């Protein structure tokens, strides 16, 4: 459970950087090599590799060595985890508020 929280922390820390969000956006269009990502970002290969490493550690990007280059693609599992929590609480509150409203509406109906 603690491990799960640490994973989420890493995902959101990774997303807090504009360059890394740009990388994710580019990868949203399809896989790309480190070299293909570095050009538009105006970064050196070394600099870009560091960002990709952060994204990979956070579970947001998956990389694979193909021939002499490293191909990157999106791995969206961690963000889906975060979305699952928002849905969890939204459903819980809907059930609570709907339930409370129905409870008193019924009581009112019985006493009137």
């Amino acid at each position, binding site marked *: *459970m603690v491990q*799960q*929280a640490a994973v*989420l*922390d890493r*995902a*959101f820390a990774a*997303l*807090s950087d504009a360059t890394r*969000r740009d990388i*994710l*956006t580019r990868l*949203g269009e399809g896989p790309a090599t480190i070299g293909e990502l570095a050009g538009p970002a105006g970064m050196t290969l070394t600099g870009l590799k560091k960002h990709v490493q952060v994204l990979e550690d956070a579970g947001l990007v998956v990389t694979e060595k193909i021939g002499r280059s490293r191909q990157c693609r*999106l791995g*969206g599992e961690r*963000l*889906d*985890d*975060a*979305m*699952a*929590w*928002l*849905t*969890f*609480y*939204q459903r*819980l*509150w*809907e*059930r*609570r*508020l*709907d*339930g*409370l*409203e*129905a*409870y*008193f*509406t*019924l*009581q*009112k109906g019985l006493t009137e």
Partner: protein
Amino acid sequence: MTDTQTHDLRMTRLIPATPDEVFDAYTDAEKQKVWFSLLSDEPGIVEIDVDLRVGGIQHAKWGPSPDRLFWEDQTFLEIDRPHRLVTSSTGGTPDGDTMTTTIEITFEEAAGGTLMTVFQSGFPTEEMRDFFSTYAWVGAFDRITAFFAG
């Protein structure tokens, strides 16, 4: 993004009863079991116990079967009956994931009953919202929009 409000969950509902009645029904374990199951087609399992004092904990478990239980533990941080309730909430899923957030609930007298407002904060959504508000990705944009609209 300069708007900090929408990073959190906020829901408001007019409940047809006095603030005292709503506060009591919301915090009483036996009443909670009744209204929490009221609208469910299959109530399944609902277990709730409440220790309503600052530092006390409300344990709740619910789900379709004993091996698929969701749970939430709320530690009471502030109790101002019947106006306000602040808790630290840790939620859990059957898969063993947990998340801790802060919940503030206010009960305001209003025409036709009590305006109950839930404000839940601490979701790690700031970066997520910034990201999704700019770029639709893996179908999550619709879901997050629906969430913040709720």
